[in-house]
């Protein structure tokens, strides 16, 4: 590590160009309300601040610097043009409570984005406010609950999720006050219909599915699943994390899903920002649309305007102080203008081509796809169980060694049901050469694992730090510098 900013701090040093003229306002604040000792913010010069954070940035891998095939995360190129579009003063300086009369620009963008997302997903209405996939999921779960409540169907307290589901799905269920029920996935990665039939009941509020699933295969029996759940009075929720695989080729609405979210930070290429922000708009069919959260944007004769609960009495309400992550929505809107409907179809085509090609190259080199008889979708899983057994080198070791080869590691150990799993998502914006280089690195590491396993187990060797001890971090919790 480099010194923390606090070690660079000296009493009464400061970045003085940031001074604000005028007296300290203590006297305007009655004494009992006053702070008596200053917060321990760092005291550094402007150059120290700039240099410190610039150098911290240089210690990150990112899409702009490295191939980043993190499965389930769609780390595709984030267009600088979309960033520029959203960073314009007119957008940045708009206060969220500015009257509609002076907000027609941003409202027009949001309205058109709603329309585009409706088209893309095959839903009746879209609400843009949820601020990430997980909030979209919560929104969907609450809408399903509200729908059943509206129908006086109060016993529906369970929501079904596949064993392979992303952690947010069961966590969302709990947050919505529902009980997550697991359903098995069969050896080919599809939901086990028998298992599904067993778990479906009059208590079923709905099912949450990703399609392609988190096993990275397309759920072929989606029609049957839909029938089983709908027949039992449940609803279908679509987790849109994997929409990149089918963009412009198959629409969740056409698969009978009732409600869904999109991850704009995945499919619509908004920057992941080192953890966020994202945006998780929710779409619904006619049946569930009335329950969508507020605010939404509508268009009438005298322009665009917000719609709130007064016009949408069944809405589950508000999920954020204002209108969600508008800045991200604007980037996604810019991206959708750049791509257009035609460009979106190319996304799924080439994302899928890249994943299948890389899977083939790895399979040809002796690695083990988790579902060797299945097509890859926009991503694919391999299991390094056999390699681990033979060499003692685990998927995590492979992951760390990949960093030394200049690649961010794929998602590891997810989905949980695939042992020593790598979930690999190259995305459509990577070249064949990059995929080949990645495959070559995997092959080289496999050879290292066979010939010199310690080299791999001790990896990484060429990063700013060596392998970090996560257990130590929990045992000796150190989460602030003071």
């Amino acid at each position, binding site marked *: 590590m480099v010194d923390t900013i606090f070690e660079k701090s000296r009493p009464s040093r400061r970045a003085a160009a940031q001074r604000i*003229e005028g007296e300290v306002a203590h006297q305007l604040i009655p004494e009992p309300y006053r702070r008596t000792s200053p917060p321990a913010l760092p005291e550094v010069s402007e150059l120290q601040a700039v240099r410190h954070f610039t150098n911290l940035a240089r210690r990150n891998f990112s899409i702009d610097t490295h191939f980043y095939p993190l499965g389930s995360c769609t780390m595709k190129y984030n267009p600088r043009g979309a960033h520029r579009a*959203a960073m314009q003063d007119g*957008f940045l300086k708009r206060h969220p409570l500015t009257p509609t009369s002076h907000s027609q620009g941003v409202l027009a963008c949001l309205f058109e984005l709603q329309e585009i997302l409706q088209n893309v997903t095959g839903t009746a209405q879209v609400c843009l406010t949820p601020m990430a996939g997980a909030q979209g999921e919560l929104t969907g779960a609450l809408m399903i609950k509200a729908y059943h409540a509206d129908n006086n169907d109060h016993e529906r307290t369970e929501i079904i999720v596949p064993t392979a589901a992303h952690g947010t799905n069961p966590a969302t269920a709990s*947050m919505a006050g529902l009980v997550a029920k697991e359903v098995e996935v069969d050896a080919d990665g599809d939901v086990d219909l028998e298992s599904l039939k067993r778990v479906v009941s009059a208590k079923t509020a709905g099912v949450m599915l990703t399609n392609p699933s988190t096993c990275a295969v397309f759920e*072929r029996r989606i029609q049957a699943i839909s029938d089983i759940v709908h027949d039992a009075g449940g609803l279908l929720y679509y987790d849109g994390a994997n929409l990149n695989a089918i963009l412009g080729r198959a629409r969740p609405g056409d698969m009978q899903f009732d409600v869904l979210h999109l991850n704009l930070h995945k499919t619509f290429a908004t920057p992941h920002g080192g953890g966020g922000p994202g945006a998780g708009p929710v779409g619904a069919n006619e049946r569930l649309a009335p329950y969508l959260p507020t605010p939404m944007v509508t268009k009438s004769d005298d322009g665009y305007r917000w719609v709130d609960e007064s016009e949408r009495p069944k809405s589950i309400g508000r999920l954020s*102080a204002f209108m969600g992550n508008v800045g991200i929505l604007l980037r996604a809107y810019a991206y959708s203008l750049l791509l257009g409907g035609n460009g979106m179809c190319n996304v799924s085509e080439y994302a899928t081509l890249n994943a299948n090609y890389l899977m083939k190259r790895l399979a040809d080199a002796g690695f083990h796809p988790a579902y060797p008889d299945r097509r890859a979708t926009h991503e694919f899983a391999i299991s390094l169980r056999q390699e681990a057994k033979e060499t003692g080198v685990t998927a995590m070791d492979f992951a760390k060694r990949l960093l030394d080869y200049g690649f961010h590691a794929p998602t590891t150990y997810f989905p949980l049901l695939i042992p020593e799993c790598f979930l690999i998502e190259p995305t459509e914006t990577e070249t064949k050469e990059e995929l080949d280089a990645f495959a070559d690195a995997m092959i080289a590491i496999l050879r290292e694992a066979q010939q010199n396993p310690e080299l791999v187990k001790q990896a990484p060797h060429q990063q700013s730090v060596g392998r970090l001890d996560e257990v130590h*971090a929990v045992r000796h919790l150190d989460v602030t510098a003071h």
Partner: protein
Amino acid sequence: MPFIPHTHADKDSMLETLGIASTEELFDEIPKNIQCDGLPDVPDGISEMSMLRHMAERAHNDTTGICFLGAGCYDHYIPAAVWDIASRGEFLTAYTPYQAEASQGTLQLVYEFQTMLASLTAMDVANASVYDGASALAEAILMAVRVNRKSKSRRVLVPASTHPFYLATVKSIVTHQGIDVEIVPSVDGVTPISDIDLDEAVAVVLQQPNFFGVLEDADSLTTKAHEAGALMIGVVNPMTLALLKPPGDWGDTGADIVCGDGQPLGIPMASGGPSFGFLCTRMAHVRQLPGRIAGRTQDKDGNDGFVLTLQAREQHIRRAKATSNICTNQGLLVTAATIYMTLLGPQGLVEVASACVRNTHLLVDRLTSHPNVTKHFNTPFFHECVLDFGEPADKLQQKFLKHGILGGHPLTGLIEKGEQSMLVCATEARSEQDIERYYEALENG
């Protein structure tokens, strides 16, 4: 194909490797009846030049004038360095630092952020981020209920002086876990602490300064809450903590959970998002804190480094039993806020807060020098204040806009006679001339 690098030759050779004739075959597991024929209703793509021209026209449309609006989102000056650095590709286009060794930049920054926020609030630990202030309050309440196991009740008291959209968000989210949110009416813009019945409450919320800009008696409520066995949740604007007593010092032993919105710390208003929500707490409760936390640890050679820690709280490990379902958070805004706090330092933050207080007092004095305008409450305020204008606020706002003034937030339905009231705010970015222009708009409106 804007961002797709494949040449025909690339495609052909990849198809050949795959032993297929066309990419269509790759989709043969998707039942034909659910395949769609493209997206005919989405217009074709355009160039970056055309897109930016279009969006520049849209952005230009929304240029409104001098902002005296606050109400949860503030027009502060942001040093140029903040977004120059936060927009570097390595911060902008990385994701959650799952591979710690390849993410030391983000992880160390998050650790530094936690330190700053903990110090600002006088709490032990901070998370690095939930979505926004409103959802942070919802998470804080859920957390309080998990923490306060002694209490068998699920009664949570929230003053009516809390930001109305925060209240709405809390209702949407927490009621589904059987939590009973009870609104405490305010009197003259403040929460009447002594009248509150804390019996069986699991937690009490207090926003300081409250939605109306008014200072609440946080000390008394905190002590009273603790005496009643309830947890104290503070909702704060981090910028105000440069001058105001931090929640960690409220009352007897301080607040137990502190949350708020980070927007005032270097985040553009941008229609209200993205910003970030934060949560701070005592070390004893850290395992119930939702959201990402970075910790300092050592590498195999004993050198210091940073990792995500206490991941067992999170959904990807704990699944249905996780502290929250949050996954993607508001990391980039945390990055910006950390750079902002560093550039300002303790002294800079005091100056910004002071200028906000001063300017709002100036504004209030100037506007109330007009015969039609009066203060609605007669209580100490920070950098927002409710003014009565003696005519319908909605119409007045439109008049002001004609003079290039975004005058404030009409309070229709939020307070008595709110139709004629606005919540006004003047940050450090407002000059005396700006305030004078407001007065002129008022006179000539």
